[in-house]
């Protein structure tokens, strides 16, 4: 069989069929080799692990099917509290940190006190471990017995997460603002836009777009850190797992709780990857700006 290629300059894409078949064959072979290697490796690891002398007791303690089934519904219920904490904290963090980041960009002398406060805030809360902030607020503030101030541990745990995470996220936003080229600001100002209008319409939309991937990363991290609120006592998923584990001397509930977290963070992680890849593609495609 002979194939006649189109004349040079013809307005069609042309792929040499022989070459294409070769490329396809190689791709198929690569996929097969990869799959076989993965399966083989997994079998070897599983065999090695399950044949060790300690395996039965490990399985009994961490991977007990009956324990899993018994504790799972309760854990899932308790996890709703984690989700609630996350859903309340996240929007607050976004708003709070954006305000802090903007305050830190203000240059007018009248704003100096605000700028100093914002800088000290970020320095302090980035330096203090989140769990310490939770202890301080969750046990400390209710101990003051102030009137009208809530003593609910969930409230203070969430407040501590907001305080701690806002410091980080503010720095993410500040980096985003810094990533917008100064010529954009200059162009906006040259059209007569005020500093505020320039930020609102020109700088922030670009800044926020630039930091979406790191922001998603911080969201994922916050999802996990809702478990830290457990130290204050409310029955969220980690606390529930602890109760189950200590009443049966079996650690399967911890593994179950871990699986619940993973089930939520993996889709989020994939989503973050997808957003990042899409933005990288856009960046490569985009030229003139």
């Amino acid at each position, binding site marked *: 069989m002979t194939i006649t290629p189109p004349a040079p300059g013809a307005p069609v894409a042309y792929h040499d069929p022989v070459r294409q078949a070769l490329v396809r064959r190689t791709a198929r072979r690569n996929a097969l080799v990869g799959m076989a290697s993965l399966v083989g490796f997994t079998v070897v690891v599983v065999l090695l692990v399950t044949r060790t002398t300690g395996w039965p007791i490990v399985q009994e303690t961490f991977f007990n099917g009956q324990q899993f089934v018994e504790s799972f519904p309760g854990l899932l219920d308790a996890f709703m509290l984690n989700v609630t904490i996350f859903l309340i904290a996240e929007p607050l963090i976004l708003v709070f940190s954006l305000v802090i980041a903007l305050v830190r960009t203000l240059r007018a002398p009248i704003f100096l006190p605000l700028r100093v406060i914002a800088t000290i805030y970020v320095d302090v809360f980035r330096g203090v471990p989140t769990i310490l902030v939770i202890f301080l607020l969750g046990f400390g503030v209710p101990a003051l017995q102030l009137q009208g101030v809530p003593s609910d541990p969930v409230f203070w745990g969430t407040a501590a997460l907001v305080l701690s995470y806002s410091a980080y996220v503010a720095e993410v936003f500040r980096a985003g603002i810094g990533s917008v080229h100064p010529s*954009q600001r200059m*162009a906006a100002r*040259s059209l*007569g*836009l005020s500093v505020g209008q320039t930020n609102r*319409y020109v700088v922030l939309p670009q800044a926020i777009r630039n930091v979406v991937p790191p922001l998603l990363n911080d969201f994922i991290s916050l999802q996990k850190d809702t478990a830290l609120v457990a130290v204050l006592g409310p029955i969220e998923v980690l606390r529930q797992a602890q109760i189950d584990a200590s009443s049966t001397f079996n650690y399967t509930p911890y593994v179950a709780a871990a699986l619940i977290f993973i089930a939520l963070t993996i889709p989020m992680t994939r989503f973050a990857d997808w957003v990042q890849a899409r933005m990288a593609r856009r960046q490569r495609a985009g*030229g*003139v700006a």
Partner: protein
Amino acid sequence: MSSLLDVTGVWKSFEEQPVLRGIDLRVDAHQAVVLIGASGSGKSTLLRCINGLEAVDAGRIVLDGEVEVSDPRVDLDQVRRRVGIVFQSYNLFPHMTVLDNITLAPRKVSRVPADQARQEALVLLERFGLEAKAGDYPDRLSGGQAQRVAIVRALAMQPELMLFDEITSALDPLLVGEVLEAVRELTSGGLTIVMATHEMAFARDVADRVCFLRDGIVWEEGPPEAVFNEPQRPETREFLARVLT
């Protein structure tokens, strides 16, 4: 009679490196003044000072005999509504469509109703042959199209004075023509223009007056025929000989 733009004795240094050294420049209404000179002669800095993007160290810049741009207390947003500037690197807003780029300042600064701003923008786009690009994002434009959109964006604020800062220097040579054509269209419409450029043939063609800048002052100026054909000073001759080869 005062002129539209009066620059007298303006000094400007960057980190103790003087760029403008007591420069004078007068521009009457409806004139097109072209600034020529080597890189670093102060053309761009002068334009930025006129728009208030850079503060001057000494001297006066007066707009229309009434607004002193060089006064540190002046409301620069007011100045910038009257003085448009287009940059070498377009500086379009990448997250907005062409239409939004153009209507942003009229809507937010001049408080023109969105519908009217849109209509006016479309008229301007059509005048420069860009009506098909209204809904596109800047990354879909060629350099020449992007620069013409930048010109339209500045025009949409209806400035009395338009500044062009080497607007063809970043362009593919094939695209320079369409941008210069847009500028020619503006000069024939009677808009007052100050333009820094390396396009000598174009300068000769459209300029009412040519100013040769050197070391931060106007070294020689006059009608284009005089400056290009019979330059009076040896430095002007030397510069022209270098760029006109």
